[in-house]
């Protein structure tokens, strides 16, 4: 397990997690193909976990070895995104067998659902880290471009973020040819696209 620097400011919690999973940094959030390791609140192994839990621990005031809390939430007030973020990752770090209580059969269906989703890789010229976008969650080029700008915010020289319309996005189709995104009807596009590349 690795530590997370709280100075990283994510746009969205989901994006951050996805970014970390691409880099293979971050917590060992369980994927569908990993067996959950049984750890308790302090990362100790399950065998010695049976003990009474104080309310303080439950409220997350205990320091986890994986986090360095910048703020001291003495009275427990949620000061917004930062502690909420940590709270959510807090849960994610505790890999509990059979939790949440969702039938195994339903989890497996869900996983299959995800694999069947139309995910394509997206790379931007000059950016080392690629992303993945699920085309099933988009119904138009506009929606896709919106997602791409969120994933790869483009900064002008004066520091302002540029308009998505200035992006040139190409895609590799089923024949291996690289085409400009936007030329064919959306439905035809999602059938044939294999991956995307954003040109700088």
């Amino acid at each position, binding site marked *: 397990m690795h530590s997370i620097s709280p100075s990283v400011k994510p746009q969205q*919690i989901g994006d951050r997690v996805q970014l970390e999973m691409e880099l293979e940094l971050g917590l060992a959030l369980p994927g569908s193909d990993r067996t959950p390791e049984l750890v308790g609140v302090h990362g100790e192994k*399950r065998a010695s976990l049976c003990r*009474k*839990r104080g309310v303080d621990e*439950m409220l997350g005031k205990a320091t986890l070895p994986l986090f360095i809390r910048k703020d001291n939430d003495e009275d427990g007030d949620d000061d917004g995104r930062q502690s909420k973020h940590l709270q959510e990752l807090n*849960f994610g770090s505790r890999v509990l067998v059979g939790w949440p209580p969702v039938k195994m059969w*339903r989890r497996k269906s869900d996983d299959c*659902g995800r694999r069947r989703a139309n995910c394509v890789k997206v790379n931007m010229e000059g950016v080392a880290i690629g992303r993945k976008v699920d085309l099933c969650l988009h119904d138009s080029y506009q929606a896709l471009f919106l997602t791409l700008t969120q994933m790869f915010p483009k900064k002008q020289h004066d520091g302002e973020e540029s308009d998505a319309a200035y992006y040139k996005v190409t895609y590799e189709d089923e024949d291996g040819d690289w085409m400009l995104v936007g030329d064919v009807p959306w439905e035809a596009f999602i059938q044939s696209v294999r991956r995307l590349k954003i040109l700088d």
Partner: protein
Amino acid sequence: MTYFPEEVVEHIFDFLSSHRDRNIVSTVCKAWYRVERLSRRSVFVGNCYAVRPGRVMARFPGTKCLSVKGKPHFADFNLVPHDWGGFALPWIEAAARGCPGLEELRLKRMVVSDESLELLARSFPNFKALVLVSCEGFSTDGLAAIATHCRGLRELDLQENEVEDHGRQWLSCFPDSCTSLESLNFACLKGEVNAGALERLVARCVNLRSLKLNRAISVESLARILVRTPHLVELGTGSFTVEHRAEAYQRLIHAFRKCKSLKSLSGFWDVAPRCLQSIYSICPNLTVLNLSYAPAIQGADLVKLIRHCFKLQKLWVLDCIGDKGLAVVASTCKELQELRVFPSDIYGTGTAAVTEEGLVAISSGCSKLNSLLYFCHQMTNAALITVAKNCPHFTRFRLCILDPGKPDPDTNQPLDEGFGAIVRSCNDLRRLSLSGLLTDTVFLYIGEYAARLEMLSIAFAGDSDKGMVYVLNGCKNLRKLEIRDSPFGDAALLENVGKYETMRSLWMSSCDVTLGGCKALAAKMPRLNVEVINDRVESDEMEENPSDMHKVEKMYVYRTLAGARNDAPEFVDIL
């Protein structure tokens, strides 16, 4: 009453529909016991290890419908090791010997082998209905045997089973002479079936009213099937992947328009949002809608659909419906009785999908709501108190806050008061699942007010033994108690040992109960089976004979007339 001739008594007993009532009348006197046992047609065994199969068949030789449950409920969440038990074969063998007139068999959470299905198929000439729920251990070969040999089969209902795929021909085994099917559900099968055979089968079964297809069935096939089955009442679609401009899609819309009797829809495995429009014509008639297998549909599209469903009584969705979507449900579905909201992002840390707001909205709009399963990211006491006031008719209330032990985010308080309000207000509550930060106080409330409670599920809750004792001493109708990761130990376990004989079962895992405590319980109560389940590789510190101080990882206690079972695997100790 004992002067009435037996036929009259039997006729009176015909009016007793519940198992409980029949069980009670059979204890009145020997004459009634005799009349009742010979006239009982439907037998329900809630725990397959509570009684020997042979004894059941001997007592009720006229059994036509047998229902048996195996593994404890937490097996659904992988807490019970794979080979724990719950085998169907002894029951089928006993029925074959003692009740060859059997017509219906319903099994839940049991291990069903192909061998047992083959025996079933050959042993009961009048067999009409097989319902398997959350079972495992069989393959499509077993299904082929059922299809081949069960003449006059009316119902084959497979719900959420683990079935090994040995090829696609089992469905083709229904002979051409089979025209009796009324209900066919193979949604849980992973493999393909012969589409042509399926289409011919449904075409000749003119009484077919319920059909639930699996994911492998294409939209083209579905369209052809629906043309032949315009009287369907329940439909589970297949994958529903289709290009909305494709001809198949147009034919599907046309076929849906002809199905005037459809009241229940499920499936939609891979549906794209746009294709949901195809069912708009059916929505005004729908009473049951299950979209919980369709993660690709986001809130906005769900909402568009639900606005048409004003007769809906039962709705299962994913939490991507969002609080706003639930508000639309609240304003549209005034007949709603059951709502289940499942988590769509089990492992991820995506933004919160539903919160207490959605639940409050539902409660204010849907006053007939009586059954709830709700996975959410947070809950407040204020919300629960409001829900309790708005919906006093809950019989089932299961709330799962995804982060274990999470307090009320507004006040940082435990959720004792919220759940307390629920049990105080809902006098008919039979089933309750708790979550969030909870102290012993919530159990005080439950013991005090939940007089009709039959099943209670506890996780990561409580401070001390007192919590569990409040429940055991208070809830007089408690049948099943399941507890995980809570600080209840031997003192609680041994406080009221007689209680366990009034219950079906007790499950405790990752609590503070020790081996010594379990042994003490077993010694005091010989008619209980106290099972200690060890399922992990023992660490080096563990000796061959662990001490009595050693905490027990998993314990399952149940009343039984059968004594210790002889099919327990080596990792189960029956004390």
